[in-house]
C-alpha cells in the first residue's frame, strides 16, 4: 500500500513537472525530442528498462511502468532538468551534520591527524619530550580529551558522512541522472581522499564544484574545478610560482598602525616570503606542471589532443599564481591570512590579485611574461584573465569536444562506442558551447544508443551493482557505510582512487577473479540480510504472495529485479537445482544459525597507512553502533527465497546494465 501511495505522488509530481518542462521546451520552439527505440524493435517497456538501466542507478520495483506512464521522452527530460523534489532523501541528508560545512569550517573542526598531535603538544596536553610514550592507552585518552575540550572531531567522521551521503543520494534521489553525472564528472576531474592535504576539501568539491555544474556548460565546470582548493592541492598548482613576478606591495601606513608584535610577526612573514621568492629564483621547482599537463591530457584535449610538452610548460606559466586562499584559524595558509587581511581585498585587487571564496589568484607568484599555448599568444601582463582565457581555449577546442563526447558515450552506451555516435555528440558539444544536456539528448536520440550492440553491454561498477541491488529490493538503508565496505571489497574504493585518471570505466577493469567472487558474496550477504543496517521485505515486493516453489520464486523475483530482461537462460540453467526436492529443507536447516559479518575497516586514507601506530585511537567511537542487531531472519521459506534473490544479484545478468 505504502508503495502505491509513493508511486501515486511520484506520478502526480512528475506529471506536474512534465507539463512545466514541456511548455518550456515548446516555448523555445525546439524540435520535438524523440527517442528512436521503436525503430530498434523495442517495446515501450523494454525501452523504459534500458533508459532506467543507463540513466538511473537501477530500476526499483514499478519504475518501468512509471516511466512508461510518464512517457519516455518526458521522463528523460525531467532527469535532464534535474530538479525533482526529494522528499524522501532530504531528511536523511539532514541527519549528516558535516556534509554542508564550508572548507573553512572543515579546517577548523576536523584538523588533520598530524596537526592534532602538534596542537596537543602546543596546548600542553602532551609533553613535548616524552620520548618513549609507553602507555598508549593513556595517550589515546589524553588525545580524546583534548579533542573534546577543543571541539575537534576526527576526520574519519567527515569522510564517513561524505561517503554515506553519496550512497543515500544514489539510492533515493529522484534526480538520478544528476547523481550519475556527479559521479561521472567527479571521476573525470578526479581528486582523492588518499591525498591527505586535499582530502578535507573533497566534500565541498563534490557539493559546490561538481554537482551544480554537471549539465554544463563545460567551460563553467572546467573553470570551477580549476579554481577549487581540492584540485589546486591534488595536482599541486597551489604551489606553482613563476619567474617574472611582481612583488606584493604593502601600504606603508599599515606599518605605522600595527603594534610591535604584529610588526614582528610581519617581519617574520616577510622573511618567509623572501625565502620563497629566493627558492623560486634558484630552483626549477617554482613552476609546477602537474595541473597544466593533466588539464590538457585528462580534463580536456585528451592524450592525443594535439599538444606538446612546450604547450604544457607554457600553460603552467599561464596558471602560476592560481592558488588557495588562506582559510581557517589553523588551516591552510593561516599565517598569510593575517597579512592579507591587513592589506585588505581592495588593495589586493588593485595589485591584480583575485580573491573569490577559497580561490586566490596571487599576482605576486604569477609569471608576468608572454606565453604561447597551442599557437595562441598570451601577451605579457595578462594576470588572472589569461588563465581564464586559456581554460576557455581548452574547453572549446575540437579535441575536447571529441574527448568528452567519447567519454560520455563510454559511460552511457558501451565500452567501445561507435565513432558515428561520438561524431554526432561532438558536433552538438561544439554547436551548443558544451551544453551537456544537449550532448546527452543527442546521444539518447541516436539509433546507436538503442542498438543491440548497446543493450546490456555495460558492466555495472561495484558501486552501481550495490546501489542497483538495494534499489531493486526497495531496501531501507540505515547504515550506508556498511554498503561501502562491500563496494570497496568488490574493487571500487570510492573517493580514494589515487591517480588523476579516475577509475577506468570499462568492464575489463571491474571484473576480475577476486572482485567477481565478492560480487557473488555480496548478493548472498545482502539477500540473507547479513549486511547490518540494510533491510527489506522480500514478501512485500510480491504483494505478500509466497512463491509456491523455488522455480516460481526465481521467475517472479527475476522479473521484479531485472525487468524486461530475457531470463529464460538463467532460469533453465538453474532449474535442476531449484527443483531438487530437498532444496527447501536443506536451505532452511543450514540457515538456522546466524552470524554477523565482521565489521571491516576498509579505510585506506593516507593516515591509516602511515600513522599505523596512532590509527586505533582515531577510529570513530561509533564502531559498535554500526554493527547493530540484525533483523531477525526467519528460517523456512524466507531463506529459500533469500537464496534465490542472492543468486539473482550475483548472477551474470545482474552485473550488466
Amino acid at each position, binding site marked *: 500500500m505504502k508503495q502505491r501511495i509513493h508511486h501515486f505522488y511520484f506520478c502526480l509530481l512528475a506529471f506536474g513537472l512534465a507539463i512545466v518542462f514541456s511548455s518550456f521546451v515548446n516555448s523555445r520552439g525546439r524540435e520535438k525530442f524523440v527517442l528512436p527505440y521503436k525503430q530498434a524493435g523495442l517495446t515501450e517497456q523494454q525501452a523504459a528498462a534500458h533508459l532506467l538501466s543507463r540513466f538511473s542507478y537501477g530500476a526499483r520495483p514499478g519504475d518501468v511502468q512509471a516511466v512508461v506512464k510518464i512517457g519516455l521522452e518526458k521522463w528523460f527530460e525531467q532527469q535532464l532538468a534535474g530538479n525533482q523534489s526529494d522528499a524522501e532523501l532530504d531528511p536523511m541528508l539532514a541527519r549528516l551534520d558535516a556534509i554542508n560545512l564550508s572548507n573553512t569550517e572543515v579546517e577548523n573542526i576536523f584538523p588533520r591527524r*598530524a596537526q592534532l598531535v*602538534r596542537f596537543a603538544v602546543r596546548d600542553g596536553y602532551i609533553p*613535548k619530550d*616524552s*620520548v*618513549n610514550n609507553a602507555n598508549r592507552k593513556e595517550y589515546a585518552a589524553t588525545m580524546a580529551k583534548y579533542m573534546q575540550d577543543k571541539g575537534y572531531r576526527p576526520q574519519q567522521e567527515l569522510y564517513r558522512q561524505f561517503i554515506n551521503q553519496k550512497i543515500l543520494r544514489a539510492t533515493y534521489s529522484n534526480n538520478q541522472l544528476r547523481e550519475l553525472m556527479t559521479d561521472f564528472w567527479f571521476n573525470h576531474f578526479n581528486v582523492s581522499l588518499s*591525498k*591527505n592535504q586535499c582530502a578535507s576539501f573533497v566534500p565541498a568539491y563534490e557539493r559546490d564544484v561538481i554537482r551544480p555544474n554537471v549539465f554544463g556548460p563545460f567551460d563553467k565546470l572546467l573553470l570551477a574545478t580549476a579554481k577549487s582548493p581540492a584540485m589546486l592541492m591534488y595536482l599541486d598548482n597551489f604551489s606553482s610560482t613563476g619567474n617574472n613576478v611582481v612583488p606584493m606591495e604593502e601600504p606603508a601606513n599599515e606599518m605605522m598602525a600595527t603594534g610591535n608584535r604584529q610588526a614582528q610577526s610581519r617581519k617574520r612573514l616577510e622573511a618567509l616570503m623572501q625565502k620563497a621568492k629566493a627558492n623560486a629564483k634558484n630552483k626549477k621547482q617554482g613552476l609546477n606542471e*602537474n595541473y597544466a*599537463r*593533466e588539464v590538457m591530457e585528462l580534463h580536456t584535449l585528451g*592524450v592525443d589532443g594535439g599538444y606538446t610538452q612546450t604547450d604544457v610548460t607554457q600553460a603552467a606559466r599561464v596558471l602560476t599564481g592560481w592558488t588557495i586562499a588562506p582559510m581557517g584559524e589553523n588551516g591552510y595558509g593561516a599565517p598569510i591570512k593575517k597579512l592579507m587581511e591587513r592589506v585588505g581585498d581592495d588593495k589586493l585587487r588593485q595589485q591584480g590579485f583575485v580573491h573569490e571564496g577559497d580561490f586566490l589568484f596571487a599576482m605576486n607568484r604569477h609569471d608576468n611574461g608572454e606565453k604561447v599555448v597551442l599557437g595562441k599568444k598570451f601577451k605579457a601582463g595578462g594576470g588572472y584573465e589569461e588563465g581564464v582565457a586559456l581554460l576557455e581555449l581548452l574547453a572549446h577546442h575540437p579535441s575536447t569536444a571529441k574527448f568528452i563526447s567519447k567519454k560520455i558515450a563510454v559511460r552511457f552506451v558501451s565500452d567501445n562506442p561507435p565513432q558515428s555516435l561520438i561524431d554526432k555528440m561532438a558536433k552538438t558539444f561544439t554547436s551548443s558551447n558544451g551544453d551537456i544536456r544537449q550532448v546527452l539528448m543527442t546521444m539518447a536520440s541516436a539509433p546507436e544508443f538503442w542498438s543491440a550492440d548497446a543493450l546490456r553491454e555495460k*558492466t555495472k561498477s561495484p558501486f552501481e551493482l550495490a546501489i542497483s541491488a538495494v534499489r531493486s529490493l526497495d531496501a531501507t538503508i540505515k547504515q550506508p557505510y556498511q554498503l561501502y565496505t562491500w563496494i*570497496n*571489497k568488490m*574493487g571500487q*574504493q570510492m573517493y580514494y582512487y589515487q*591517480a588523476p585518471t579516475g577509475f*577506468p570505466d570499462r*568492464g*575489463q577493469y571491474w*571484473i*576480475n*577473479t*577476486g572482485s*567477481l*567472487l565478492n560480487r*557473488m*558474496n555480496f548478493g548472498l*550477504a545482502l539477500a*540473507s540480510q*547479513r549486511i547490518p543496517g540494510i533491510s527489506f521485505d522480500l514478501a512485500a515486493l510480491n504483494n505478500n504472495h509466497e512463491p509456491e516453489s523455488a522455480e516460481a520464486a526465481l521467475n517472479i523475483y527475476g522479473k521484479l529485479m531485472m525487468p524486461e530482461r530475457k531470463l529464460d*537462460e*538463467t532460469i533453465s*540453467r*538453474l532449474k535442476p*537445482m531449484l527443483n531438487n526436492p530437498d*532444496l527447501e529443507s*536443506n*536451505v532452511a536447516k543450514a*540457515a538456522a*544459525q546466524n*552470524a554477523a*559479518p565482521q565489521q571491516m575497516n576498509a579505510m*585506506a586514507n*593516507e593516515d*591509516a*597507512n*602511515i600513522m*599505523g*601506530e596512532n*590509527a586505533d585511537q582515531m577510529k570513530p567511537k561509533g564502531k559498535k553502533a554500526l554493527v547493530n542487531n540484525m533483523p531477525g531472519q526467519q528460517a523456512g521459506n524466507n*531463506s529459500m527465497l533469500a*537464496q534465490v534473490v542472492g*543468486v539473482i544479484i*550475483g*548472477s*551474470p545478468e545482474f*552485473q*550488466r546494465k
Partner: protein
Amino acid sequence: MTSRRGFIKAGGLALFGISLGGIPGFLADAVAGTVAPGLFKKRKIMVCIFQRGAMDGLMAVTPFTDNYLKAVRPNLFMSAAQGGKNKPLIDLDGRFGLHPSMAVFEQMFREKRLGIVHGIGSPNNTRSHFDAQDFMESGTPFNKGTETGWLNRAVGLLGHEAATPFQGVSLTSSLPRSFYGENPAVAISNLADFNIQLRGNQAGANMASKSFEDLYDQTSSGLLKDTGKESFEAIKMLQKTDTKNYKPEYNAVYPNTALGNSLKQIAQLIKMDVGLEVAFAESGGWDTHFNQGTETGIFARNVNDLSNSIMAFWTDLSKYQDEVTVMTMTEFGRTVAQNGTGGTDHGRASCNFILGNDVNGGLVHGIVNPLAKENLEDGRDLAVTTDFRAVFSEVANKHLGIHNDKILFPDWAGKQIGVMRGV
C-alpha cells in the same frame, strides 16, 4: 590486452588434478604437454614490501661514525660502542650500524644474502607522502598521469601468459597503485575469504556456488564467462590446502601483525604452486614525526616487525629460497636533524633491504657522503644518490628476467649499481 586463454587451459587441468585427489603431478604434465605455461616451479618470485610513511633510513642503518649526525640528533643518535647502558647498533662494516631491533637480519647480511642500498630515493624532490608514493608506485617520478603501476608492467613483461589469476597478488584490501593496469593482478586481504561465502550457512554457500558456476558458464558475455570460470578454478586451487589452519615450516614464527600475516599468506600461495610471480605487501607506521624512540619505541617496534616478518617468511620458505627475492621500499627518508618533538620530518633519501640468494649481499650499496651541511639536499636532508629505479629494475631484470626497462620505467635511462649478482 592479456589473453585469458592460458589460464583456462591450465585451470581445466587443475580441475582434473583435484578430481584425482592428488596433486602436483598434473603440473609437470601441463609443462610437458606445452599446454600451459609452467607454474611456479620454473619461475622466480619477487616480493615487494612498501613501508608507507617514509622510513628513517638513518636510524635503520646508521652511519655511526658521523659526528654531524651525532650532533644534530642529540636524542636519537645511537652508538655502536659496546658496553654502554644502551643496546648498541650492530656494526656491519665499521661505518654503518644496523638497528638492534633488526638483529635477525645480521646473519643474512653476514651470509651475503641481504643487501642494503643507502641513499636511495626519487629524483623528484617532493616531500609529500602521497606524491612520492604515487611516483614510486607508478615508476614515473615526474608524470602523475601514468595509468599503470610498475608491478603491473612487470607482470606484463614476464614473457608468458598468466597461467592463473595469481600471477600478481597484493595482500591488501584494494589494489595498490603499483598494480594498476591491464595485466592480471588480484588484491586479497585474506586467503580464507577467497570463496563463495554465506556465514553460518555452509550448505547454502555450496548450493549458491554451484548455481553461480552454472550461470557464469552459460552467460553470453565473454568477459563474465571467462572471469567466472577463472574465479571458480581459483577457488579450487586454494581449496587444495587448508588456508585457515596453515602451519609454517622450520619453526618459523610470524609476528601477529599486518605485515606478518601478509607475508604468511604469500608463503602459502608460493607453496600452493598457484603461479605467483609478483607479490606485494604493506607495512605502516613509519611517519615518525613524534617520539620516534631509539632502541625502544615506535621506530624500534616497526623495524622489529619488519625484520621478524621477513625472516619468518624466509625461514618458512627454506625450500624455495633460490626462487624468492624480497625487496623493501619507502617513499622517502627523514630529516637528518631531529625535530622539536623527538621525531624526524619528511626528508629525501632512505635505505632499503633486498634479501635473496642471488642478491649481492653483505654490502651497504650506494653512496652516503659525510653528512656535512654542504653535502645535504637543501641543506637538511640525506641526498638521493641512487635512483630507486636503478635498484627496482635491477632486481626485476636479474631475478625475474625482465629485460625491457623502457617499458618498466619509461623515463629512466640510468645505470644499475650491482645489487644483484651475475647471470
